[in-house]
């Protein structure tokens, strides 16, 4: 047992070897001038640049980097909650009513593969630069996976379960909230995961073309104009970290609190 634990600990350290080797070589070649530092800034430069943005450069009391992160996350939260509310309600309606399903399913099938960012130019004409456009496009991108999965989950419920609940004399709302929704929770969570990923990616993309001075996407794209690759690298790393935190931290936590606790992992998700 103890040995196994130790081995596991050692094996989590494995990826550090190639990463640190890679970073060392990168740093070394940049220092001796084989790599052009104006194009591929070295790791130490990236670190110092991020440190600068985090500590030294401030607007008022707040460091610039935190402001960028804050405005991206703020947009994500609004976009994701709006689209979750709309998508889950539509998904439930589609799941429970055959006619609504037949009407909306083809439309969703057609609209789902449209990349969220393709809506951005049109929405920029309607809503202008800045938050309204970015949030709307993010919400559109997150909407479709959630609808799709909610509807699929509610529809996938076994008929016998519904029948037995009906035999026991439950009314419609109870059937929905106590039977259908718990059953569909794993699918809902899959939908949230996909929706979060698509919403976040689209949000960053739209920030690049329609941002209003703030946001991580804007920060990265703006750094290109001033030829500051170190900010781009730093931004990319921060984007990945935030997403990992959201998915592996937040969604995993929700998963543990709901479906794992209830013991209804009836799908291989």
């Amino acid at each position: 047992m103890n040995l196994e634990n130790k081995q596991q600990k050692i094996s989590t350290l494995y990826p550090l070897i190639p990463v640190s080797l890679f970073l060392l070589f990168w740093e070394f070649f940049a220092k001796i001038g084989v790599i052009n530092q104006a194009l591929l800034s070295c790791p130490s430069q990236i670190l110092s640049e991020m440190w600068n943005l985090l500590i030294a450069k401030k607007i008022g009391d707040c460091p610039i980097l935190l402001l960028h992160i804050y405005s991206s996350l703020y947009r994500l939260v609004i976009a994701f909650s709006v689209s979750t509310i709309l998508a889950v309600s539509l998904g439930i309606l589609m799941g429970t009513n055959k006619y609504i399903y037949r009407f909306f399913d083809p439309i969703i099938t057609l609209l789902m593969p449209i990349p969220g960012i393709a809506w951005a130019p049109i929405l920029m004409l309607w809503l202008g630069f800045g938050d309204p456009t970015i949030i709307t496009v993010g919400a559109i991108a997150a909407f479709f996976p959630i609808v799709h999965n909610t509807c699929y989950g509610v529809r996938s419920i076994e008929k016998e379960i519904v029948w037995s609940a009906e035999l026991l004399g439950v009314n419609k709302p109870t059937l929905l909230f106590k039977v259908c929704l718990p059953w569909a929770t794993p699918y809902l969570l899959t939908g949230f995961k996909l929706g979060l990923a698509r919403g976040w990616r689209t949000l960053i993309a739209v920030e690049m073309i329609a941002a209003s001075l703030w946001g991580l996407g804007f920060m990265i794209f703006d750094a290109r104009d001033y030829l500051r690759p170190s900010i781009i690298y730093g931004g990319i790393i921060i984007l990945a970290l935030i997403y990992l935190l959201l998915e592996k931290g937040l969604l995993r936590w929700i998963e543990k609190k709901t479906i794992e606790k209830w013991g209804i992992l009836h799908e291989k998700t």
Partner: protein
Amino acid sequence: MRKPKHEFFNKKIKDTTQFIFPFTVVISTWQLLTQCGIISENLIPSPLSILYTIFSLLSPKPLLLIHLWKSVYRLTLGYSLGVTLGILIGVAMGINKSLEKTFSPIISFFISIPTIAWVPLFLILLGLGDETIITAIFLGSFFPVIYNTLNGVKSVKKELVWASEIMGANQTTITFKVLIPGSLTSIIAGLRLATGYAWRALVGAEMLAAAKWGIGYMIYAAKAFYEIKVMFAGLVIIAIGGLLLDHLLMGYLEKETIEKWGLVAKR
């Protein structure tokens, strides 16, 4: 028992009408609303005028076809590169334990980077144009394919590998006859995921980095001239293109391989 042919066709016709019906309702309401002036034509053009715009982009000079051709060319190149390398590396990681342990955390880190975030970097390194866009598409499709291939190879039952080892198969035979066919369901799921990623990366990267052509560029450039009809026309094309890619191409691939071989249930 096989169904008689006419019944099969009847079902097809019924499905098609059911698919088309909601669009007829939406489009005719939309047309009516713009006709009556309830929706301003400057903000949301009517369906007929969007159709007209598509034709005008096609008929005197086939601009739309050039845009499409450019996009398809970039997509094909980036996607096939990403898929080939992705499957190769995925299989290698699935076979070699220490390779997997070393690189799989790195890959899950890279998967969580939005593809579009690379584009500004490539703009510095490679400049405007094809190289940047193709590289973005490559990265977009590369990581999901690796991830799914790796999971597929890992999920092949140990007993199958042992059995073939006992029967004297060498590593090459095991790889090509056991591991790859066994993980095909997962690989194809990865390919499907990757088409979505590649399609999104294409449109996004073309907006930021296309020099002159491409369907994403067409939409983005139309914004500067306030040509909202062209933008809607582009959206229609993108929707149809995405649908074709996902349902026809990937659906066909699934039907011809894993469904035909009985690896998954027919839908």
